[in-house]
Structures are given as C-alpha cells and as structure tokens.
C-alpha cells in the first residue's frame, strides 16, 4: 500500500468542509462532460442507427467501426488525439463519445427490430406512412430497450469522465488525480465516492424516467 507510511487519517472531514465549493464545481464539470458526451453520442448514434435500419447492409460495418472505437483503451485514444486536438475539451469529448456509440447504436437498432412484424403490418395496413410508423409506433415501442442502452452508457460515461483528468478535465477525476499526486486520500475518496454516487443516482433517475414513459410495459409485467 502506497499510503501505508502516511499518518494521515483515511478521510479528513475538515478538508471536505473547507473545499465544498471546489467539490461542487467538480461535480458540475463532471456532469457537463457527461451530458455533452451522452447528448452528442446519442445524436450521432441515432443518425447511424437510422442509416443501419434503412440500409440493412450498413449495420455490420457501422457496428464494426463503433466496436473498434469501443475497444481502444481510453488512455491510448487521448494520446492519439493529442497531436490533432491538443489538450482541449474536444479531445476529452471525442474519447467519451466514442465509447457511447456502440451501446447506443446497438440498443436503438435492437429496440426497433424488436417491434413485431404484425404491429408494423397493422400500422401500414391502416394507412401509416413510414415516417409516422417510426415516430409514433416503432420508437415508443423500442423505448425500454433504448433507455436500457442510455442507462449503460450513462453509468459507463460517468466512470470514464474521471480519466479525462489526465488531459486537464475529468470533473471529480481531478480530485482523484490530486489525491494520488499528493498521496492525500481525502480528495481521492471524495472524488471516487461522489463519482459512484452520481452513476447510481442517474441510473435510478433513468429507471424512473423509463417507468414514466412506458406505463404500458409495466402493466403488462404486472399481469403476466
């Protein structure tokens, strides 16, 4: 244990109380970084998923590219981007967005593919246009699967944001890095615990959101 020699207590509450402002600003930065990554990632994924659904043959290559991005170690990705985008927020977000794509694309496509053929046939048979079918029937019915993807991506991204501390961002990751550099456990623990709390909190909020948006799925579960 690298901290074994220090006589410091595991967590110094006086540091926490005197740095509430700093901690709060890191929480906010953490959420901003996460929000941008999820928003941009979802928007890109939505477009790619629609392309994949429209042109079936493109699904394999799209998921292949997203899979490669997903497989690159995040540290390596940041290093590769440094010569191009430098120590900018763009570098951080490109990395974070990359990791959301595979999750989002797969869940959007799987969710819409999961809509039974006979529902589509009934809708078209009653005079739905393709576009209205997608927006009014397919997307709402795919919501449970899509939101499941959003939950995984959210929890993953909140964890990953801490790594961007290495290029000067990172939100709560900066507290962790600061603690590591100074062999001072308090900010490290505060950063790590708050990051976990955020992940769990947003996961819970998304569960509530899903329940609110898909009351039909819950009632079905209740009677089966």
């Amino acid at each position, binding site marked *: 244990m690298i901290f074994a020699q220090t006589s410091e207590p595991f967590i110094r509450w006086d540091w926490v109380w005197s740095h509430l402002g700093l901690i709060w600003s890191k929480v906010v930065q953490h959420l901003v970084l996460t929000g941008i990554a999820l928003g941009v990632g979802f928007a890109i994924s939505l477009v790619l998923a629609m392309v994949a659904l429209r042109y079936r043959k493109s699904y394999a290559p799209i998921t292949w590219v997203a899979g490669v991005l997903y497989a690159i170690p995040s540290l390596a990705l940041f290093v590769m981007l440094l010569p191009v985008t430098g120590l900018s927020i763009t570098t951080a977000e490109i990395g974070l967005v990359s990791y959301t794509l595979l999750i989002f694309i797969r869940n959007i496509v799987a969710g819409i593919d999961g809509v*039974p053929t*006979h*529902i589509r*046939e*009934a*809708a*078209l*048979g*009653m*005079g*739905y*246009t393709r576009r*209205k079918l997608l927006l009014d*029937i397919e997307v*709402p*019915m795919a*919501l449970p699967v899509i939101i499941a993807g959003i939950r995984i991506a959210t929890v993953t991204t909140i964890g990953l944001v801490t790594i961007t501390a290495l290029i000067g961002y990172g939100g709560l990751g900066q507290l962790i890095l600061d603690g590591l550099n100074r062999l001072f456990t308090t900010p490290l623990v505060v950063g790590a615990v708050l990051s976990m709390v955020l992940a769990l909190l947003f996961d819970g909020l998304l569960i509530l959101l899903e329940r609110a948006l*898909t*009351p*039909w*799925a819950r*009632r*079905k579960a209740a*009677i*089966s």
Partner: protein
Amino acid sequence: MIRFEHVSKTFPGSSTPAVGDLSFEIPRGEIVVLVGPSGCGKTTTLKMINRLIEPTSGEIWIDGVPSTTQEPHLLRRSIGYVIQQIGLFPHRTIAENIATVPGLLGWDQGRIEERVSELIELVGLDDSVADRYPAELSGGQQQRVGVARALAADPPVLLMDEPFGAVDPIVRARLQEELKILQARLQKTIVFVTHDIDEAIGLGDRVAVFNVGGVLEQYAAPEDLLRAPAGDFVVAFLGSERGLRRLSLIAVDTVVLEPGAIVEASSSGYEARAVAREQGTDWVGVVDNGRMLGWIWIADLDGHDTVADLRPKPFSARLERSNTLRQALDAIVTSKTQVAVVVDGDRYLGMLTAERLNEALLS
C-alpha cells in the same frame, strides 16, 4: 364493389405466380370468404386490395375507381384491416388504438371520443376497457378491439385476414356469430380470408375456393358450393362431411314438417295406440290445445284408460324454426323417439325425421 381484372402477382425470385390471372367481383355489402390451402394466394389476393402487395399486372377496381389512383397510405385509411395477430399497439390504450384511423384522418378530439365509445359498445365490450392497455385484455377481447379499430372511420370495405385463427374454438364461434350480427347492421363489403372451410361456409355470402397458385376454382354461395362443387379439388377441399355441412346451412322453417305421432292429452288409450300403429312408432307425443307436453311409451298405457293418466316425458331437444337441419339431425340421433320436435315457444309445429332431412338434401 371490388373488381379484380386479370390480376396476377409473381413475387421477385419466384418462377411461379402466387396469383395468376384472377378476375372476379366482390359485391357491395356482402361477406366474401377467400378459402384454400396454404400457398393458394388467398392472403396475397387480400393484400393486393389495400396495396400492401402490389399486383404484377392487372387492375383492382374499388367502387369504380382503380386502386392505384390514390397514394397507398391514403387508400388504406378508407379500408378497414384486421389481421390474425390483431396488431394492437401495446403502448396505446384501447381507446387510443380504436382512434388510430380517425386520428390519421385528422378528426377533431370530440368526434373521436364519441366514435370510440360508440365502437366499444358496438363490439360488445365494457366501457371500462377504454383506458386499459392491450396486454390487459383476453385474446377474444383483443380481437373485438381489432374489429372496432378497423371500423373506426366507418370504411365501406373491411379486409379480414384469418382474424379468428388465433383464438380458441369457443371464442371463435362467438366472434363469428357477433360478426354476422354486426354485418347485418353495418352492411360492409367484407373480404375474409380463412383456411377453415367451416368458417367460410358459416360466414360467407359467397365463398371463393382457391387452389395453389392463386387459381380460383369456384366462386359461389355456400349452399351452391356444397350442392354442386366444381371439380375434384373443390370436392376434396370441402371434405367428407359435405352433406352435414349443407344441413348446417338450411333452416328448419324451409322444410315441410311432419305432423308426427301426436295425440291430445284427452285422448283414450285406444286412440293413442291407433296413432302409434299408423305412424309405426312405439310412442306418441302428447299435446294439449297445441301445446307440447312431451311423449309417452305405448307400452306404459297398459292398464290405463286415457293418455291423461300418464305423465309425459319431455323431449330431450326442441328446435325453433331458426335452427338448422344439422341441429335437427343431432336431435334425431340423440333422442329415444328418433325425431326432432319443432316448436314455436310452447306451440307444437311438427316433427322432423331422418327421412325428411334426406329429402331436403336431395330436392
């Protein structure tokens, strides 16, 4: 009216047509049932009407207008569509499901709500289902919602693709009965696809029997189909119980009834024996001023002076005039007296025997 004019359909990658050079007419206000084995093109034929499948050649006319004059999605809003899997939208309530086509047509909210509650009642559902989701309803209830949804915008034409194929036989029989009652009120032009010949005969004003490759083997009223099937395929498809099926199409009141072995309750034992001897029975029916009381064994009259001394046993089955000859046959073969008693309420009308049914079929 729907008219097929030399319509054919060959699916891409197939060398044989699914439907080949089909021409026939579906009269307005009738139920026409398309029936045949799987692969006979009956569903393809149905789906060409609302252009879910586009014909390779030929033209389909709906009320004098070629179906291709309108955009497919606009055409479909004027044609009701019911499928076997029903296809209710699981994320929408029953009321929202029924409101689908009126919504697409842009009706105002008040008119939609009024129409929805009207339809829920029309198909025999309770008001309380309106705010439920499809998964909360039974299969039979869901199919009623399917029919209500198809009728929502009051389309003149209704396409039904094996709509009752997925429900159990008891519910199916009830839904068929309800459809007939509904049709008597609404007079839609209904095109109904099934592979069940009994369903076809029971529901159709006309039945179109298809052979593999979309060949129309015979197009006739059920009674004519059973009486004079055109060719070996139709005979084979109608099955070995053609006579029984015909009986189910003939109502009791179309047949001349026999007076039967009947005496008044006030008759003497002697008179009763004479009637039984004349009719060749060992029993007589007992009526009182035209009211059917039941029947007695002649042998039980021994030691009694009048028929009134005995208590008549009730006939196991009494038929009304609206019953079918098939039900009459059932009564005949399951009763000790080997006759079916036909009544109008309490009033005795006459009897049916196996010989009478035989004559009815051969006439």
